[in-house]
């Protein structure tokens, strides 16, 4: 089969799934089967593409030119390939988990839930494969709009408020900052194509470069760069699988992916480090990284703690991109993968705890480990992965980030990363310690009381991913390293 056609297939599959799901409104089993088949289909297509890309192919497909200069076009490069692979893999797992969670909690409006989920994944695939900024922006907005109903899913006042903040901050930043950045880029560079080495060199002065970078960094609100991170904790009102989508599968990953892609393919890391326009972003993301960790430390609500942990981890990726050195960019790409595996495990666990025992606070977790051993073991693994302890995947991304910071001449950043690791330990391990070492406080007598099998299966699987990523990180690194050859 034609490789370029595979791109279109990968884009069409989720949207077809979204169109088919409502037809099975009355038959939940059929409906969930459609979701799983769609997710598997997308996964298979992405894997076929991955094989081609690993072999050195760079498939591309141009759909249509909207107006002169604005083209809907797709071109696969290593970073986007990695993002698509992560999103499509985790979609299958999340779908399985969703089935357990949504049924276990008797959530309303499940059909529309699966529809929007599928559309969101289609949008994420579009972002991953986009060949220019306009196409990326198109799918970026589709992703914002399609996840709004998911965040508002519960329909109560709190959910509506959270969703309102979510939509206003993401659409707001994208319209008021991201879009002008795109227009500005177009005005100075005359093109919007992602080009290795960037398109801005020689077209724009150093000060203006700094401002343009700021428009991108803040405009891409999904990257949750402090102080535009506020929507992320607010969106915690959503059902847990949606949080997993937001934090691991698609949304924030799309954000940091976009930032990395823009820095690498629009600015170009050489140009950026020469001008020094990236310096402020290195400093800001370092501060954000520590600040978010400190906030997470003080959150008793488990999901809120994880949310601030995400804000902090996203700052790692932005930092990696902002360092504008080849090792750090590889580190940023790796961290997208590692954090996805670790964080999705943690969220699945938080959801499983809620489904099985309705507990939401860290302080309520005393002794729960003996009742939910699989869940809490998986939580432990996910936490270690995020912290970056071998033999879990997270260690490799931190390794590359630190090495990249040295390479770029930012030695203090290495210290920041170390302190942050300590903070990670301080806020991620207490739930595990409470679960296994403290006596239960709610009269628990013994015996297993786990979440539904689908949920536990899913979270065990992602915990295994964390482990596997340690051993197979070199494959990802090799893929990303191809970016640097141009």
């Amino acid at each position, binding site marked *: 089969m034609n490789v370029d056609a595979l791109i279109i297939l990968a884009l069409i599959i989720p949207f077809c799934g979204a169109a088919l799901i409502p037809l099975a409104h009355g038959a939940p089993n059929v409906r969930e089967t459609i979701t799983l088949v769609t997710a598997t289909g997308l996964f298979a297509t992405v894997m076929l593409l991955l094989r081609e890309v690993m072999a050195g192919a760079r498939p591309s497909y141009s759909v*249509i*030119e*909207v*107006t002169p200069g*604005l083209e*809907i076009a797709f071109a696969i490069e290593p970073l986007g390939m990695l993002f698509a692979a992560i999103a499509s893999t985790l979609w299958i797992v999340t779908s399985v988990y969703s089935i357990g969670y949504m049924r276990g909690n008797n959530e309303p409006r499940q059909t529309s839930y699966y529809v929007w989920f599928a559309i969101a994944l289609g949008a994420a695939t579009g972002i991953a494969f986009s060949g220019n900024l*306009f196409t990326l*922006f*198109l799918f970026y*907005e*589709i992703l914002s*709009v399609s996840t709004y*109903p998911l965040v*508002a899913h519960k*329909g109560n006042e709190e*959910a*509506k408020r959270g969703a*309102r903040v979510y*939509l*206003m901050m993401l*659409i*707001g930043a994208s*319209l*008021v900052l991201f*879009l*002008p950045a795109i*227009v*500005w880029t*177009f*005005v100075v560079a005359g093109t919007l194509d992602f080009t290795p080495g960037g398109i801005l060199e020689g077209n724009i002065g150093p000060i203006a470069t700094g401002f343009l970078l700021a428009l991108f960094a803040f405009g891409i609100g999904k990257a949750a760069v402090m102080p535009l991170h506020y929507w992320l904790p607010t969106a915690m009102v959503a059902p847990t699988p949606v949080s997993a989508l937001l934090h691991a599968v698609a949304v924030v990953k799309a954000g940091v992916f976009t930032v990395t892609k823009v820095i690498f393919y629009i600015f170009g890391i050489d140009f950026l480090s020469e001008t020094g326009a990236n310096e402020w972003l290195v400093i800001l993301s370092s501060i954000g990284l520590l600040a978010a960790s400190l906030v997470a430390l003080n959150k008793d609500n488990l999901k809120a703690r994880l949310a601030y942990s995400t804000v902090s981890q996203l700052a790692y990726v932005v930092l990696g991109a902002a360092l504008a050195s080849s090792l750090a960019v590889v580190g940023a790409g790796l961290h997208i993968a590692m954090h996805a595996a670790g964080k999705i495990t943690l969220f699945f666990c938080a959801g499983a705890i809620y489904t099985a025992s309705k507990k939401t606070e860290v302080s309520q977790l005393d002794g729960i480990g003996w009742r939910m051993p699989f869940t809490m073991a998986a939580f432990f693994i996910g936490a270690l992965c995020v912290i970056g302890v071998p033999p879990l995947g997270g260690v490799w991304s931190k390794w590359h980030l630190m090495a990249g910071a040295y390479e770029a001449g930012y030695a203090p950043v290495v210290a920041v990363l170390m302190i942050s690791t300590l903070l990670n330990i301080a806020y991620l391990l207490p739930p595990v310690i409470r679960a296994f070492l403290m006596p239960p406080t709610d009269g628990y007598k013994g015996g297993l009381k786990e979440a539904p099998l689908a949920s536990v299966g899913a979270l065990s699987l992602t915990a295994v991913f964390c482990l596997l990523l340690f051993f197979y990180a070199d494959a990802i690194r090799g893929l990303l390293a191809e970016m640097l050859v141009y």
Partner: protein
Amino acid sequence: MIADHLPALQVVLPLVAATVCAMVDRRHVAYVIALLTSFAMPLIAVALLIQVLDQGVISYAMGGWEPPIGIEYRIDVANAFVLVILSLVAALIMPYAARSVAAEIPENKQAWFYCMYLLCLSGLLGITITGDAFNAFVFLEISSLATYVLIAMGADRRALLAAFQYLVMGTIGATFYVVGVGLLYTMTGTLNFADIAARLQELDIETSRPVLAALAFITVGIGLKVAMFPLHAWLPNAYAGAPSVATAFLAATATKVAVYLLLRYFYTIFGFDVVFVQHPVAQVLLILAVAGMFAGSLIAIFQDNIKRMLAWSSVAQIGYILLGVSLINHTALTGGIVHLFNHALIKGALFFAVGGFALMAGTVRISQLAGIGRTMPVTMAAFVLAGLSLIGVPGTVGFVSKWYLVLGAFEAGMWWVGFLILITSLLAVVYLGRVVEVAFFRDPEGGAAKAIEPPLSMLAPTWILVAACIVFGIDAELTAGTAMQAASVLIEGLR
């Protein structure tokens, strides 16, 4: 050959049809006449556009009297484009009108409604097609008078007040316009657009105050019809009070035609140099446009009546169009012109959807539309998609307009204007988001709970417009391309 007389037919056909409607005074007959006439309009307009794109400017001497003595109908890409907009909206609105008019207008007045609609259409087409300053005034009055009647037919008694308010303001506007035309006639001795333009060239404009006064009078007069901020006061009441069909029709067409006429005066008659280089018209226009964008969007946020909310949104959208004019470069003008078309699609679709709510749920108040997204999902989906288009989400026509406008602002070196445009887009998210929240995240109650989807005759035109919003957002070659040519024609002038 009939093909040679297409320009005349474009205007005369609806005019005659209106008379016939009034004479037969049977609602079903009147409807069929209006329907068939409306279907004929886009055929003529598209034929004219093709001819213009093919062979250049068409000059048609009305009644065989050669210009500049006789009335000339003069069609270039710019007004051919506007004719297409108008006639397409007309052709879509008539199938839609059947059920809505039957429900909202007393039986004995329905034939008159169609008569007035046809008169209004004829007037708007006339303003667009004519190449004669006084003839434009006549058509302006025909369309305005018909509009007053259309608005007054609204079910609410406040519609009468709105119609009267518009009557007073519209008459003042028309008077300003005709005073301006009179001044021009005194100075040049002609009423033909091309002829006035040529003779103004020979005058030293700086020393001839009457010409400048004419510019001022005409700008204010047409500005009133455009609903240019701060001359917009009539618009929200008029749109909120008029019957649904009339609102949709006026919102999609009337102000567009007035903008076109303003462009014609600025670029073709007075000329780029006089208006934009020697006098600070652009600067004034820029301030008014931005003020309109913000005032319209902000006030829209606080409306409970959706029709009034969308009307205020129109004030803002007119701001965008005028902004495209005021940035005085080709890209921004393209943005302004393409937004004429795009906004017609968007607002048409939105008002069509609202007409569906009015008919099936019996209300257009946001507070009473709780849960309408669950009882009328197909209509509400159309509303949401058109709303996204209004915001300017990529993949919709709204984005194409904003792209050109923001790009034009950057090219003009006024990047901050680009930011202002996008901040007002954000306000659109707020006022449309309110409707979406109420519609989807509240349990149905009252009229909304019992509502069902409107008949296909209303859904189909709504979705055709929504589909157009997306199709022309993904492939803008036709619309933006034509707008680009129209902008070139205007900037180059008639010479």
